[in-house]
């Protein structure tokens, strides 16, 4: 069987970000500015991506607008025939900063929203005045004639406002809305018990999305991502390991997904020592969980094995200690009780949020202790973690 080339490249060009969202998908260990790839390397990655067959490139981070060479990278992507998508918080997006990106050929912007109420948005983003700046950014994007996606990140404290979020998206003139429940990796795993919605909350969001889809069919695309803890079967994470996507970290690590640095069963390839094609085709990491040959039961004989590809490897590792295990959200997994326990714990979860900051991450053992903690021990460990996290940040 010949290997299909990848379709999409997630270019995490920096981890620097003015926001501090406690559910950030970045790894707990953030890359400092001094560790970022230089412009020439990113230009080379873009050339290699196009030659390899990649059709879409997502400039992400951190905040990709924190890099001054973003327009240069977008222009190269456009010249190579790559469809460029800017995934941004929008707080640095003004007519002046947007203009060079438009000139470079950017067709689409995806703007994240933490909430649609000012105070709640400030709390969740750790950035005062974020909502006002994002609303202005949305207007600049549509005024420039670009396509806009509004990405609303959903967790228990804002999920009641989903109908209003969709109305806001319509009022802003977006082509596409994402209603995306937080997924639990990295920073969001640290804060899981504060973020997971209840089953009733989730059902209300799902109903609101279905109603809006019917009401605006043909005019508005709504993509919906549920918290997979409530699913009976796992998500087809990244459409399967090493099947469609490549993620490049700010330091040039080439990964099957943005959380794959947690996988230790194979060395992490880096673009400074191998080509994108070599890494895609030949690296141990990309071949580790590719296809179905690596699967054990219950995946191996499951009729869904080429629908969900065993689910998420990073989630399997984080929750079972074995990256080759069936994703524990699966109702057929022996580890499903771990998910149910997390849901039960979240029902009474009230720990303080740990914000995403350089040096702000608790140690891995502390994360495990925290996420598995009883209410009593969390009250002790959790508050201490938060304090030390904040102190570290001030150094």
């Amino acid at each position, binding site marked *: 069987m010949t290997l299909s*080339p990848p*379709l999409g490249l997630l270019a995490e060009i920096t981890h620097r970000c003015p926001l501090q969202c406690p559910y950030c998908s970045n790894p707990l260990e953030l890359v400092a500015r001094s560790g970022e790839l230089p412009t020439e390397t990113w230009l080379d990655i873009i050339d290699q991506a196009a*030659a*390899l*067959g990649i*059709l*879409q490139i997502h400039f992400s981070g951190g905040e990709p607008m924190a890099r001054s060479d973003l327009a240069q990278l977008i222009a190269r992507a456009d010249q190579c*025939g790559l*469809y460029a*998508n800017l995934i941004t918080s929008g707080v640095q997006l003004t007519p002046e900063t947007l203009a060079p990106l438009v000139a470079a050929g950017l*067709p*689409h912007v*995806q703007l994240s929203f933490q909430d649609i109420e000012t105070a709640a948005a400030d709390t969740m983003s750790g950035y005062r005045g974020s909502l006002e700046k994002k609303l202005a950014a949305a207007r600049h994007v549509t005024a420039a*004639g*670009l*396509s806009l*996606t509004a990405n609303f990140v959903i967790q228990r404290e804002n999920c009641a406002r989903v109908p209003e979020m969709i109305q806001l998206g319509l009022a802003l003139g977006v*082509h*596409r809305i994402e209603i995306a429940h937080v997924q639990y990796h990295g920073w969001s795993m640290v804060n899981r018990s504060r973020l997971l919605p209840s089953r009733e909350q989730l059902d209300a969001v799902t109903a609101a999305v279905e109603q809006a889809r019917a009401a605006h*069919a*043909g005019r508005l*695309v709504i*993509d919906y991502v549920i918290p997979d803890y409530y699913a009976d079967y796992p998500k087809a994470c990244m459409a399967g390991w090493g099947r469609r996507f490549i993620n490049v970290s700010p330091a040039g690590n080439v990964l099957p997904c943005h959380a794959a640095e947690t996988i230790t069963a194979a060395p992490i390839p880096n673009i400074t020592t191998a080509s994108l094609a070599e890494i895609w085709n030949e690296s141990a990491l990309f071949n580790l969980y590719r296809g179905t040959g690596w699967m054990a039961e219950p995946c191996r004989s499951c009729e869904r094995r080429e629908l969900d590809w065993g689910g998420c490897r990073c989630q399997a590792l984080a929750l079972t200690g074995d990256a080759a295990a069936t994703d524990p959200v699966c109702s057929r997994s022996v580890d499903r009780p771990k998910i149910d326990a997390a849901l039960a714990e979240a029902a009474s979860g009230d720990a303080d949020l740990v914000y995403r900051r350089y040096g702000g991450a608790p140690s891995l053992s502390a994360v495990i202790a925290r996420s598995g903690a009883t209410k009593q021990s969390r009250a002790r460990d959790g508050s201490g973690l938060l304090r030390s996290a904040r102190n570290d940040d001030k150094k």
Partner: protein
Amino acid sequence: MTEPLGPKAIPGFPRHVRFQFDAVRERWVVLAPERMFVPDEQAVEILKLVDGLRSVESIAAELAARYQAPEDIVLADVAVMLADLAARGALQVA
């Protein structure tokens, strides 16, 4: 079921949608935000005539002449195919 486009409707690609040849896979693709469509051979010939100026009936007339096919049947196919892509946000219709 999506309503077919009317014969006078004028389809066009929005600025944020790209219809291009994928040289690595040797096929045409339609690229949109977080979306990719792979039109079949017949759809590709239709989409090559979409320029934001020509109407559905004009596109159908050209294809009917080129392939010596009955114009009413071609028109019906073209109107359905373009309506489907428009419903998915990959075409705008004036």
